[in-house]
């Protein structure tokens, strides 16, 4: 049968699963002739004898193509065409129309008909040709649309991949930048520590050498004074030598303490600052028995998360310093307490002693720095306190309105380490 095909074209439709064609035609003879012809060519044919029945079938069966008579009783063929175009724009509709209806044919093409065939159909081959080319076009359009969709999907997928990769890259860059910053901070800290270490070594070597110069020097003096019989001088020389040795041993001891501050780590725990202050005050009072000094402690200081023994050491040194530099104050008073700072709690040790000149307030925390060469302190105490506070993540400074007006040593600890 296929060999009788007049289209002369390869029939795409019939190699497929059966193609459904809906024919809407009121002329029963013509309709059945068409149907028989198409069925012979393995189309599946649906028949409708009027417009509303045709539209019904069209909706229910969703045919692959429609042959539509324009002139039918009842519903107008053009309205049917328009309805089908609206509902399924990709289903080819071929108009089958009488020769006298050319005006309607033009109108139907304008409204989206794919092709037309004039009645009477002299050669069914024309019909078949029109049907097959419409189906081919529909199939091409469909494939084209699918391909387009495929491309769009691909573009979307690739775009998504690209965005994902971009995000990953951005995160990676951020990670590396953070690592770089971390590294720079570390280097900076190491550099600071190196400078500190160098300064420390410099200061230590200098200050340890100093008593040695004294010692050796006085040995020479002693020899001369012995030879010259200057007995009083001899006595003095020996006292000075002993003092130099004491000074050196004290220095060594305190250096050891200072060095350990940076190393030994006692696990921090919650300590009562009030309790620590009281304990420190008691220890210092025992050291200065006979000195009438009033030490007042704020009973309501917050607790701190700290290394207890180090914090005690810091408070002891601050109180010791206050006692040492109380001067000739007639009613010496030392107060340990805390006050609200800008956004932290400021602990303080206040005295009414000799005070510190503004220009030297930074210097007092330096290792071996002593503002007064005659005092018997070694110049390590405040450096030690500073180190302890800094190891706890805090800061220390001194406030004083100047000489003779007392000093207040203040320090803050990280607020998150305080419990009220």
């Amino acid at each position, binding site marked *: 049968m296929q060999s009788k095909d007049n289209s002369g074209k390869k029939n795409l439709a019939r190699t497929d699963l059966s193609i459904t064609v809906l024919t809407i035609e009121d002329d029963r003879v013509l309709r059945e002739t068409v149907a028989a012809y198409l069925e012979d060519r393995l189309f599946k044919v649906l028949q409708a004898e009027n417009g509303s029945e045709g539209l019904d079938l069209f909706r229910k069966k969703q045919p692959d193509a429609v042959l539509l008579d324009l002139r039918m009783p009842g519903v107008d063929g053009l309205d049917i065409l328009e309805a089908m175009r609206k509902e399924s724009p990709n289903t080819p509709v071929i108009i089958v129309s009488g020769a006298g209806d050319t005006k309607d044919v033009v109108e139907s093409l304008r409204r989206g008909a794919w092709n037309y065939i004039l009645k009477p159909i002299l050669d069914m081959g024309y019909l078949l040709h029109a049907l097959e080319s419409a189906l081919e076009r529909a199939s091409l359009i469909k494939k084209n649309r699918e391909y387009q969709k495929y491309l769009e999907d691909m573009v979307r997928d690739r775009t998504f991949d690209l965005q994902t990769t971009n995000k990953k890259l951005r995160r990676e860059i951020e990670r590396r930048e953070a690592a770089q910053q971390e590294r720079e901070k570390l280097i900076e800290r190491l550099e600071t520590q190196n400078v500190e270490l160098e300064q420390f070594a410099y200061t230590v070597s200098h200050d340890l050498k100093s008593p040695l*110069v004294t010692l050796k020097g006085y040995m020479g003096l002693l020899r001369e004074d012995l030879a010259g019989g200057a007995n009083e001088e001899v006595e003095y020389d020996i006292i*000075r030598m002993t003092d130099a040795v004491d000074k050196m041993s004290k220095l060594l001891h305190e250096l050891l303490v200072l060095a350990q501050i940076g190393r030994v780590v006692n696990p921090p725990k919650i300590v009562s600052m009030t309790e620590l202050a009281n304990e420190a005050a008691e220890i210092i009072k025992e050291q200065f028995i006979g000195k009438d000094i009033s030490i007042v402690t704020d009973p309501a200081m917050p607790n701190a998360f700290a290394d207890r023994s180090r914090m005690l050491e810091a408070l002891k040194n601050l109180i010791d310093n206050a006692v040492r530099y109380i001067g000739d104050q007639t009613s010496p008073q030392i107060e340990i307490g805390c006050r609200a700072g800008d956004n932290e709690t400021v602990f303080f040790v206040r005295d009414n002693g000799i005070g510190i000149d503004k220009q030297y307030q930074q210097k007092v925390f330096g290792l071996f720095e002593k503002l007064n060469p005659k005092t018997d302190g070694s110049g390590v105490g405040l450096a030690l306190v500073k180190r302890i506070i800094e190891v706890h993540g805090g800061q220390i400074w001194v406030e004083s309105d100047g000489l003779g007006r007392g000093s207040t040593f203040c320090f803050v600890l990280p607020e998150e380490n305080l419990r009220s």
Partner: protein
Amino acid sequence: MKAKTQTILHIEDDQDHARLARRGLAKYHPNVDIRLIEDGELAIDYLLQTGRFEKVDNPKPDIILLNLRLPKIDGLEVLQVIKSTDSLARIPVVVLTSSEAERDIDRAYELHADSFLVKPFDFRKFSEMMRDMGTYWLTWNRGISQTND
């Protein structure tokens, strides 16, 4: 000039080192007047006749012996003040310190120290150092003219 007593201003916070220097100097230069100042701030006051020394007519020193590590104002700062003050700039400044750190030596010479001596351990050497220092700066070296005294 011969009759005039020469003055050394010794700026030193360590009493013992000051005494060693004094003994060493006295042995060979008995007529030298040694004035001891114990910190950098007082030293500047002495030299500029300010603060505690405002109304005191101290002799202008012929030599300044300067320790570097001093309380309050550092020795190098004192040196800088001396060398940048017209009336003091020509007084020979002999740095006498236990520091052998290169940075101190470099810095001192940059600030126009005239001499840099490291305190020796040995008293005999200390004495000899003081003797030679005194002989060089007080005897051999022609000092600045005294017309501005």
